[in-house]
């Protein structure tokens, strides 16, 4: 079969596969919460939680273990901690949002 290369932007699935959670990712609550954005300057600093680059040639893995091995496991910080942290941050954000709305709507 003749194989042709398609530019990156031609398949939406291929694009979505990449852009949603790969590359530089800022933890979701910042992105979905508008109030969260100004937290960066006001009360929070940006912290690099993890950096992974994958510069090894992954061995062929079949359908049994389809996710690549190097570093894949260490990629995610422990989720119970994150969940708890998210919960508390969301609560803070909601509080801030309410406060802000009150002041802007005066």
């Amino acid at each position, binding site marked *: *079969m*003749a*194989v042709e*290369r*398609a*530019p*990156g*932007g031609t*398949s*939406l*699935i*291929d*694009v*979505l596969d*990449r*852009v*949603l*959670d*790969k*590359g*530089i*990712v*800022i*933890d979701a609550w*910042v*992105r*979905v919460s*508008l109030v969260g*954005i*100004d*937290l*960066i*300057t*006001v*009360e*929070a*600093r*940006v*912290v*690099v*939680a*993890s*950096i*992974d*680059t*994958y*510069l090894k*040639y*992954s061995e*062929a*893995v*079949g*359908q049994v273990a*389809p*996710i*690549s091995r190097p570093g894949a496991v260490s990629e995610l910080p422990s989720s119970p901690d994150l969940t708890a942290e998210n919960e508390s941050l969301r609560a803070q954000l909601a509080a801030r949002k309410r406060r*802000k709305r009150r*002041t*802007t709507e*005066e």
Partner: protein
Amino acid sequence: MAKSVKKPAKPARASKSAGTTARKADSGRRGSATATAISRSKLERVRVPSAGRRDDATEGKYVYCVIRSEQPLSFGPLGLGAEPSEVYTVHYRDIAAVVSNTPIVVQDPTRENVLRHQQVNETVMQKHTVIPMSFGTVFKTNDDIMELLRSAYDAFSDVLKKMQEKFEFGLKVLWDRDHIVREIEEEDEDIRRLKGEISTQKGSTYFARMQYGRLIDAALQARSERYVAEIFDALRSVSVASRSNKPIGDRMIMNAAFLVSRDMEQAFDARVKEIGQQYDKLTFKYTGPWPPYNFVNIRLKLERAH
């Protein structure tokens, strides 16, 4: 209030001035929490009487990627949004974020938006090594972006060096399962015999069918692993790194990404095409060049300052 926020040249609008003042006050808010509380109330007093809503709506910055550049750059009106806005750079030392102005809203990953995000990355990538940003990251001001670049400077700088002059290519391999099953039946004597038994046997064929299914599954598995291993091997010498993602759907046997240096791009391309000739029963979906999405994962989080 010492700092002013650089703005890209834009036709001035009468209603803008109030909003701009607010923004300046905004950037003055950096610093201790008490100072924040004070200037914050000031800020809101400024903002309320202005037609501030609409002004706010033009002031966010959508970030596409991070590159190394000391020169301000402009990439044309490719930005995300209703009317394509100018894509330009925000700098900190020798690195820069590629951004465009956007309303401060959560951008939905619609077809249009997602493709625009990718298109900007593709354009920037032609001349620069990029670390792609995941979709939907909006900051309020240039200062916020500089703060991001400053805080993660070492990480960005290091990763930019590692990714220098490298692209990602995607390769998905699919097969026609039924066709392969027929092939296996022809080649494997045990399976052929079982199939014969099932079709001629009187009475229950339950166990024969179970066994047939198991053998076929195992044979399919072995064959797909063999193909995938051979394809990875064939591409090893023309790429820097590879990653194997989970295949999607039951026709796909391989869903991989390869990191390829710019000077090996043609060799990689030629090799993929050779493989395509060699495995004429498989279907190849070959895409790229992409920014190295599959080879970089920088997770940032926000931490409360003291």
